[in-house]
């Protein structure tokens, strides 16, 4: 899994490429701690290249969401692949995350 971060003031646009599963969710989690210590107020995740997620990955997403909400920030996801979207729908995550079709709407939303 590859993580690319583009900073824009207090906004971070992060591209996650590949798989997020039990073998690498720790790396992602460590990265999120870095973002939090940089006081990011809007974390925007580009999911266009994310082609697999399992419960380990979903747990990290939920932790991020809880943390951003608790600190008054925002966590947005965009361009989710259909297979990933299905997992979000089934687990009820679609209702508790801010999911957008593209970066522009994620920024505005």
């Amino acid at each position, binding site marked *: 899994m590859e993580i690319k971060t583009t900073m824009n003031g207090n906004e971070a646009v992060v591209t996650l490429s590949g798989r997020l599963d039990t*073998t690498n969710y720790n790396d992602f989690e460590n990265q999120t701690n870095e973002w939090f210590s940089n006081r990011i107020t809007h974390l925007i995740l580009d999911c266009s290249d994310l082609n*697999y997620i*399992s419960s380990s990955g979903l747990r990290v997403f939920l932790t991020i969401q809880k943390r951003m909400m608790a600190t008054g920030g925002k966590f947005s996801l965009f361009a989710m692949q259909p297979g990933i979207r299905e*997992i979000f729908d*089934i687990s009820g995550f679609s209702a508790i995350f801010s999911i957008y079709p593209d970066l522009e709407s994620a920024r505005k939303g």
Partner: protein
Amino acid sequence: MEENTKRRVLVIWNDVKELYRITGFLETLWEDWALPVKTMYPINLVLEEAFSNIIFYAFDDQDTHMIGVEFLLETDKLVIIIKDGGKPFDPTAKEDPDTSLSVEERPIGGLGIFLIKKMMDEVHYERVQDKNHLTMTKYLNSEN
């Protein structure tokens, strides 16, 4: 076993890195058995979830243990049987998480088994001669 049933077995160790082997195995299997492409992710997911539960909870020691995964392709369904010699553990006995809870109320854990039950059409657990047998079935009709 039905006359037209295909069978293949994957043996893995109770190590997280074996997940890579599962993915590789499935890619080959999907090609060999000409299985519908869109079912590969759900099957990979349920295997990861079931396998993760076994490696994290089934064994109390630090030893290496073998886990057998049997794949059976019948006319209209794919049957997967995971067998391990760990502690008795019935994943189907767990209560489903409440998916209507808000972010603050949603607990961090509990999703793995739930996803298995949702992605597969049938999930069945049995304890057979000191082994856990988890049988998961996916129907392969045009809707799937």
